[in-house]
């Protein structure tokens, strides 16, 4: 496994969730994706969407006041610099990114 795949520095994306209407951990999502295993056509999309800088910018925003029952995402992105961990409410994630998460196979 190389550190750089088609110009992408991200190697691995790990996603888990907590919270939600039921507060049930088993109802949540658990996804692990090796970027080099993703379809070539999607590679650049995932790389940009899960770039640590992009996730950091999302983490700087505040979830909407008054929200309830939303899911919290724990996202770990590993690149050549190591593991970058983020905890984000689903309302902090753009819809396109959520759709990409939904498209990843369940761990």
């Amino acid at each position, binding site marked *: 496994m190389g550190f750089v795949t088609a110009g992408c520095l991200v190697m691995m994306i790990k996603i888990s969730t907590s919270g939600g209407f039921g*507060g049930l951990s088993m109802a949540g999502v658990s996804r692990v994706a090796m970027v080099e295993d993703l379809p070539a056509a999607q590679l650049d999309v995932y790389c940009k969407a899960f770039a640590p800088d992009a996730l950091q910018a999302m983490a700087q925003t*505040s979830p909407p006041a008054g929200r*309830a029952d*939303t899911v*919290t995402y724990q996202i770990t992105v590993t690149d050549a610099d190591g593991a970058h961990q983020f905890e984000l409410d689903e309302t902090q994630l753009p819809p396109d990114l959520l759709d990409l998460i939904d498209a990843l196979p369940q761990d």
Partner: protein
Amino acid sequence: MCLCHNPINCIVPPHMLDVMLLRGDKSVRKMAESLLKIGESTREDRAASMGSGVVPANDGSGTFVSHAMAMGAPGAHTCNREVYDGEEKAALPGVLVRGEGDPPTGDVEVDRAYEGAGAVFDLYSEEFNRNSIDGFGMTMIQTVHHRRNYNNAFWNGLQMAYGDGDGRIFQTFTELSVIAHEISHGVVQHSGGLIYQGQSGALNESYADVFGAMTQQRRLGQTVYEADWLVGRGILGPEINGVALRSMKAPGTAYSDALLGQDPQPYHMDFYVNTTSDNGGVHINSGIPNHAFYLYCMYMGGNAWEKPGQIWYRALQQINNPHATFGDWAAQTLDASISLYGAGSYEMLMLRRAWNLVGIDV
């Protein structure tokens, strides 16, 4: 010594900034958000310089009055529903498929969301004189088929969204108590708010469950003795060993399943769960105030939306403390019972007993 450079941040305590974040308009929220960020880093610096490693937590009551309560509801209430199809995508609200007065679509999820929101609107309007979520006729926007295999329903501050479930753990979220639960989170937000963390978050959850169950009972014409007191009946997958997601009558018994484990809700403060997950166990410890409401209904008899519901609703409108603890909330309900039914009334005495039975002294 104040280490910050912004004088406002030195004066305004964090709990007030939380309130501004919750209740302010866009510019106020932005200001509060930036001050909180400065405040967090300042407190971390301060704690580090003191060698404690602990960031001090502040608590206190808010200073705002519920907008809807203060202004009063207009005479003519207007129900306005919009149901959108999310088409299994995350973008909200999606494609409008049924507006107010439109005929059924044939899509079960769409039509249940539409009818359910109508039942919630009627409860608040006819029993509590509240005109929709905000008290001013706010359009109830709902999105069904939200995302793919999505095991959740939520209120995002502006609208409700319901997944279809993965078919294994959850099979639907457009059950009436769930719809009423989510809409009631909106009512909490527009009644001053309860911070979604720890005990205040569990109270936010409990209020939503109470009004979820109440909507269901009213729709079915059930007295408190006839009701099943379940939240989310029938939403669990067919293979899950459970009847619902939560039980107000017997917290901790809604499900017991190899995959999900045991329903973790406590019914008494002795079993309060201290946890950092789920925003401090908001969906777990809500079992305690849920059970207090159930016990009180058993004392009162009749319909839940009558005396018990009136007390709970009034307490929400008047609590004026987004950081309220269970004790604060219990005291507020007692105040509400006194103002509605008198000091020393049967209604007040039984309410105190209900709270005592779940381990909360008032």
